[in-house]
Each structure stands twice: as structure tokens, then as C-alpha cells.
């Protein structure tokens, strides 16, 4: 479908990767940890390694949760844009197929949040 308008209605998407000064957006969801109300929206370097993403960005982002220090994120279950995904820890995000505005979902099977209700 297309918008009904009085003229040829066409605009640039506001969040194209070139607007992010060499960086890209990445979303990460950690299911069963609703203490963080929504998936994280992170600004990352496309050429950073997956390992660096975990160490430098994901761990600090999740640090407030008691499960964070116990989590083995590298060996957890990953989805990339809803598809099963096996990360290469030493390859860059882009080489892992993680492009701008991709969404990663990381499930830590033994860690199910607090109170038995995924908090």
C-alpha cells in the first residue's frame, strides 16, 4: 500500500546508516530479563568484533541485573533478525552479517530472570 496524498509523496528514511557518522544501530533483546523494559538500542562500530560487542557493550549494558555476571553470552543461544545464528566471536559485526538496525536476541537457557516471571 501507499500513502494517499495530493502530490508525489516520497521522503528519505530518517535513519539511514550514513546519518550515524560511521556507526550503526544494533538492537539486543535478552528474553526473560524484563528488568530492562525493552530491547537495548545500541550505537556500535560495524567493524568491532563480536567478542568486543559482548565485553565492551553488552556486559556493561546488562550489569545491573543479578544474572548478568553469571551469563555466558558468547555460548548462549542467538538469533539474528529472528533467524538462528552462530556468532563468530573474532569476526566483525558486519562480517557476522549484523547490518544497520539488525536485532540480536540472546537467550541464556539457565538464567531466566527473577521471581520466576522473567524479570
Amino acid at each position, binding site marked *: *500500500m501507499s500513502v494517499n496524498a495530493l502530490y508525489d*509523496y516520497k521522503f528519505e528514511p530518517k535513519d539511514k546508516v550514513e546519518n550515524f557518522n560511521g556507526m550503526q544501530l544494533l538492537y539486543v533483546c535478552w528474553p526473560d530479563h524484563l528488568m530492562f523494559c*525493552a530491547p537495548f*538500542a545500541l550505537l556500535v562500530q560495524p567493524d568491532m568484533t563480536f567478542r568486543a560487542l559482548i565485553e565492551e557493550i553488552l556486559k556493561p*549494558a546488562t550489569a545491573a541485573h543479578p544474572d548478568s555476571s553469571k551469563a555466558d553470552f558468547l555460548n548462549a543461544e542467538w538469533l539474528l533478525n529472528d533467524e538462528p545464528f552462530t556468532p563468530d566471536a573474532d569476526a566483525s559485526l558486519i562480517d557476522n552479517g549484523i547490518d544497520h538496525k539488525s*536485532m540480536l536476541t540472546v537467550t541464556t537457557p539457565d538464567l531466566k530472570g527473577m521471581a520466576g516471571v522473567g524479570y
Partner: protein
Amino acid sequence: MAVQNKKLNLKDKYQYLTRDMGWEPTYQKKEDIFPHEDFEGIKITDWSQWEDPFRLTMDSYWKYQAEKEKKLYAIFDAFAQNNGHQNISDARYVNALKLFLGGVSPLEHGAYQGYAKAGRQFSGTGARVACQMQSIDELRHSQTQQHAMSHYNKHFNGLHDAAHMHDRVWFLSVPKSFFDDARTAGPFEFLTAISFSFEYVLTNLLFVPFMSGAAYNGDMATVTFGFSAQSDEARHMTLGLEVIKFILEQHEDNVPIVQRWIDKWFWRGFRLLSLVSMMMDYMLPNKVMSWSEAWEVYYEQNGGALFKDLERYGIRPPKYQDVANDAKHHLSHQLWTTFYQYSHATNFHTWVPEKEEMDWMSEKYPDTFDKYYRPRYEYLAKEAAAGRRFYNNTLPQLCQVCQVPNLFTEMGAPTKLSHRQLVHEGERYHFCSEACCDIFKHEPEKYVQAWLPVHQIYQGNCEGEDVETVVQKYYHINIGEDNFEYLGSPDHKRWMSIKGEKPADENQDAA
């Protein structure tokens, strides 16, 4: 003419008023004079079928409004002179006003602009007059609300720059984008969105919480505003119903177009009202009714009857109303815990509800509160007591359409976040729900331009890289005054001294 003949009755006066505005053009084409009337695909075969439910003329309108205004300002003056703010239930209540002033009053102003535009675009004079009157009403609402609440600005924080904040602050992009979406649509969609879906179907879910909330919490200024706006709102609601019936009766081709608008605007309104749900359950120290009760009465029952009535036009209830009905058990709790963790970036305070309040919620939400939400507050209270009041130091993913953080859960699965994504012309987009994703699919060109606050911060368009700079410089939120935890805040301390109590314990201080 009306001046010469003093014996004209109201109906005749109205005839003259409208007839004189509607003439058959001779040297201009009608479509040049009313260029917005056709492009949405709505077919009007006979404008004279329009029944104006009020037949209000300008002279009676001015007279009536002026009388209301006089009474209203007399009460505002008395309220200020008597330090009415000292008689409210508790200073936590003022946070509801902060939300209202930044989130709702600017929408009244947007409605004023929207109805002025729609009132220019219809070739039917009855519809034009009704829109113009409503336009003036809405301007009055915006102004009187600001006057009603301005007294609080002298005594509490966070109320000092509402219009500026409305244009910039992350959560206020939810109401702002809602209204911008409506008033950038054509005139028929605008009326379906605001007059029908919002003012007719959903308005009680906005006004009852705020105005009864004010009454229950001793806020006489806001209550009086509410009474003063009530007769206007009654007119607006009637217009909303008249509009929808008129469009549907004019041509059967209008039915599917209107149905899609109802689906869209019901959902957009429901998402917007999620802010009201938390206000109702959490920000009112004296509670009126729970969000789930309000939803049952004002949507499930009243809305149910309405859509039954519209069945004969071929209209069905809004798509995804089942999701909204299911969400009534969770909505306010999910919103409040979100705002609790992002309190460093809001112009109002948040807090863990007190024990009696939690018991009230257990009673109002027997199937969900104790199981899913009470444990959260117990944990948060424990952390705060240990000096680790929880703030989320990351930014959240936002929905491309409603712009709320993707915090909602799936219907029937309250621990699973609801999320959809799609790729459109090579770009990825993320949504809070199937419903928002549907809205995008119908008009992708509109939503690819969304000004998403989180992405704007990351693009460097908000005067700083870090949240603190953005909050202070770009949002004009005064750090340590307007934001953070309520306990120990300057508002809290001021309230205690008003009540002659000891200032809050230092170790309860905010961040």
C-alpha cells in the same frame, strides 16, 4: 440581516450563518476552492444531508463561553490566593499534571490547528462551522489548562517548559507524533482520527482519569477546568458520531476506507493512552478507579454498544481490540516500571508504590499484579534501600509508528516482549506490535520519516552524545530538580515542609 430582524429564532439565525458561507462558485472551480476534499477517496454526494447537532451561532457561542471563562478565572484566582496547592492529597499528584501539561495541552493546541484546517477544507457549510467552533474550543482548552496549572509551576519542579519539551523529550514524541500523524492526513481522516476515534470512542479514558483524579486529589483548579471544558467536549463527541455516520451514509465505497482509519486510530489512541494508564494507577495518590476498570466501562461496554450500532453500516469493531482488551491487566504496570527506570530522563518523578497502593493493585488486578508486578517493586525497593536505586543506563528500542519503547508483551504471554520487524526498500524497521506494523505497511512513506528520539540522539542531533547533556541542554530538564526518584527530591522536601514534617532522610536522596 440578523441584526435587523430581532425576532429571528436560533434556528433561523443558524440558517443565515451557514447559508451565507455556502454559495455556488461562478468563476472558480469548486475543486480549486476545496482542494483537499477528494483525494482521500471519500465520496460525498449531498452535503445538505449533514445534520449539525448544535446549530450554534457565533453570538450565542461567545456569550456562553465568556460566562464560563469568567467563572473559571475567578476560581483560578481564588485557588492561587488561598495557596490551593497546599490542599492536594500529596505532592506526588503534581506529577500527573506535569505529564498532562507536556503531553495533553499541546495536543489541544494541535487540535485547534487541525480543526482550523479542516474547517477550511469542507465544501459543506455545516461541517465547516462545526470544525471552526471546535477549533476555537481547543485553543481555549490549551490556554485554560496552562493557566490552571501555572500556579503549580511556582511551587513544584518540571512544569517550566512544557511546549519546548513536547517537541523534544523522548516520551512526549508519543503524543506529538500521534497528533502530527492525524493533522498531516486529509480532512476526513483527521475527523475520523480525532473527532470519532479519539473524542468519541476514547475520550473518557483521558478525561475521567485526569479530571476525576484532580477531584479525588484536591486539585480544585484542574477540576474547574474540567467542568468548564465538559460542555465543549459533549459537543465534540456529538460531532464525532455525526461525522462518522454522515460519511458512511453518503456512499458505500466510504466504508472500507473508514474501517481502515478506525482500525488505525483506535490502535494509535490505545497506545497513546498507555501513558494515561500509568498515571491513573500510579500517579494519583487517591485512586479513582483502576485502568482495567476504566477500560472495561469506557471501552469494552460503551465501545461495544457503539460498534454494535455501527454494524448496520458495515463497520466492525477495530482490528486488534482483543489485544487491547487483554492488555488492560498489564498496561499500567509495564509503563510505570519503564518510566521508573528512565526517571533520569523525565521532567517528572517516579517511585515504588506504597504498601497500601500495592494492596489496592492486588485487589484490582487479582490475576496479574501479585504474580508479575509485585515482585518487581519488592526488588526495586530493596535495591533503592541499599543505595542502588535502579536506573537503566542504556537507551530503548522504539516502535517506528507509535514511538513507545518496545515494552509491551504478547497477548496471553506477559513475559514475552512483543516485537515485529520488516525490511522496506532496503531499510529495517521495528515495531511494538502487529498493529503498528500494519499501520506502517499501509503508509510506509509516512513513517520512514519518523523522528525517533533515540536515533536522533545517536545521530548527534540533540546537542550532546551523553544522556545527561541531552536531558539538560536539549530537553531543558533541570537535573536533580525535575528528574530522578521522588523520595528525597526537592518536590518531596518542599511538600514535607509545607506539611510541617521533617525533611526526608539524606540517604533516601535521589541518585
